[in-house]
């Protein structure tokens, strides 16, 4: 199959472009997404080719972005909203949680709101405050939203198209420190034929321990698995955070008997806690050790000179792996 070498950022860009070509109802909107192409250039070139009616530079007001996207969706459009940085999502939280997520149920299915909220998330780029957070648990806790994240250019290309095609609101979390990672993307075929958005992926097969990660942490998890020469570690890339593909997680844990979950977000009430609870309920007799969580601390995201201590790195993941085997 033919492939193109693309960075993760360029792959999202290519996926957006293709979605806009395939469906004239797809709109891109957000702060600086037009002429500038977004602060990370993810919408680069779209304004030039699709014009201001389809690539909308919005006023600098995040609640307005999501609120007007709801109205546009009610009128039959499929808005793809860019929130510039994770920490800037919160002004839009009310429209997202109380309106976007709930209107389908409120209307008993009469309203369909295919809105995508793209958010560059996570740390590792040496940024100022509010530019490095991992807010996924707020979204996965909210009924009515789907939440996905990507770890490689291939998934980025296809999953953005699948998110746009989905009739539910989708929060599409983009691992900003991986925007520049390159890989081959197979652009042939269709989004419907690609791996479904809701499916997890075994990124590395192994037999002794399951390491669950997603988004920016998949790369770290794979490096940790390679570095551990004593154990055969299986890495599962969740891809979808709501719903989580528990079949794939459970199947892996039942084979390995051990689970470590790694994410950048604080561990308390994080997605890792939910996964630990579910695995305990469903794989109790297969577990050789308690589920171990490796994540950010229960602190505000620290100044960038400290972030290497905050973000789980290869060594902290292996420390978690050791704790599992030591049990």
């Amino acid at each position, binding site marked *: 199959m033919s492939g193109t070498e693309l960075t993760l950022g360029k792959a999202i860009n290519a996926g957006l472009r293709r979605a806009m070509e395939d469906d004239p109802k797809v*709109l891109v909107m957000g702060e600086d997404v037009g002429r500038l192409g977004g602060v990370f250039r993810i919408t680069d070139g779209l304004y030039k080719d699709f014009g201001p*009616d389809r690539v*909308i530079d*919005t*006023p600098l*007001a995040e*609640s*307005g972005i*999501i*609120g*007007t*996207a*709801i*109205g*546009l*969706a*009610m*009128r*039959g*459009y499929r808005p793809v909203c860019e929130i510039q940085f994770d920490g800037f999502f919160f*002004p839009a939280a*009310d*429209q997202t949680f*109380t*309106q976007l997520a*709930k*209107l*389908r*149920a*409120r*209307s*008993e*299915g*009469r*309203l*369909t709101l295919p809105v995508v909220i793209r958010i560059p998330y996570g740390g590792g780029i040496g940024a100022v405050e509010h530019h490095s957070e991992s807010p996924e648990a707020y979204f996965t806790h909210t*009924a*009515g939203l*789907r939440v996905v994240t990507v770890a490689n250019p291939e998934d980025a290309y296809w999953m953005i198209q699948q998110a746009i095609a*989905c*009739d*539910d609101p989708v929060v599409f979390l983009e691992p900003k420190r991986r925007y520049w990672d390159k890989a081959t993307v197979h652009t042939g075929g269709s989004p419907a034929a690609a791996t479904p958005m*809701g499916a997890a992926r075994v990124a590395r097969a192994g037999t002794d321990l399951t390491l669950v990660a997603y988004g920016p942490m998949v790369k770290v998890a794979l490096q940790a698995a390679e570095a551990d020469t004593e154990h055969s570690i299986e890495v599962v890339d969740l891809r979808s955070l*709501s*719903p*989580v*593909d*528990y079949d794939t997680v459970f199947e892996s844990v039942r084979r390995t008997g051990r689970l470590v979950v790694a994410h950048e977000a604080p561990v308390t009430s994080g997605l890792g806690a939910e996964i630990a609870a579910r695995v305990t309920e469903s794989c109790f007799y297969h577990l050789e050790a308690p589920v171990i969580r490796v994540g950010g601390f229960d602190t505000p995201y620290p100044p960038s000179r400290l972030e290497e201590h905050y973000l789980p790195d290869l060594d902290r993941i292996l420390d978690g792996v050791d704790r599992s085997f030591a049990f």
Partner: protein
Amino acid sequence: MSDSTAREEPELVQLLTPDGEYVPHPDYPFDPTPDHVRGLYRDLVLVRRLDAEAVALQRQGELGLWASLLGQEAAQIGSGRALQPQDMAFPSYREHGVAWCRGVTHRDLLAMFRGVTNGGWDPYEHNFHLYTIVIGSQTLHATGYAMGVQRDGALGPDGTAVITYFGDGATSQGDTNEAFNYAAVNNAPVVFFCQNNQWAISEPSERQTRAPIYRRAAGFGFPGLRVDGNDVFACLAVTRDALQRAREGQGPTLIEAFTYRMGAHTTSDDPTRYRASEEAEEWRRKDPIARVRSYLVREGMADDDFFAGVDAEAEKLGEQVRTDCRALPDPAPLDIFREVYAEPHSHLDQQRAEFADYLASFEGAEGAAR
């Protein structure tokens, strides 16, 4: 500190005085034909009756809550009757009069306040969005919808306009001000219809704003005006004008309908704790229905038979409201899971299946299910 802007007495568009005298306005044409005015009178009386019945039903425990429109009938019927079928309205939660104009049945309105649904009607069937409870949120939905109308090329003399309703309290919300700005920047075909009923639960409008609300539009770059919200003629005329401007591509308008919430905020509220009864007395003299009645009598457009006929119709409606409310069926337990997602969601599908099994486990058991 002096602020002449805040103190200057605002101009009020009024076509029908509290005494029932019609005073034509040069900017807002209105044709008070007998049929038209009698129709408006009937609307006003019937929605007031619907409202009174709903308050009573809440007192009897048949509704969980009701937000009364008492005193605001003219603002709602006037603006509601200005809408064309293709126009889209985004209400707050007190717009029973507008709902009436859009053909939403009393049954559907009561269903929400009874707690059998969080919505109640098909927004597309009536071009009337669901009630929005979080204050001001719907102003952004309306603005986005209007941006969609622009992209559909649906503007023109017979094009589509959008209207959104909110109160004086909502003008303090960020969303409302963001909506003003988004609408202005995009020149969106939306009319912002603010019913300034003077009270946001217990807070008087001077706790919300220092300058008159309608003047805020100027700062955003579009026209604003204040209309006598108890004057159904004026509300209809100014809204029709603003909607027409919107549908012809001339952008947004802010209408501040100056009115008064004669009742409590909702059936859970007790206004005696925060406002003087003399104030309501003063507004009672500006009643929106009495002045239309006076006009009809003064002009000889309606006789006793007409008024008796409307009263009889109101009686019948009241009876129907009571019957239909009590007949609303409770939803089934598994309806909790309905339509949360458009596409299958494995977590929720599993929960639904487990809850169904749990419910089924009671079948046949003593004291089953409830």
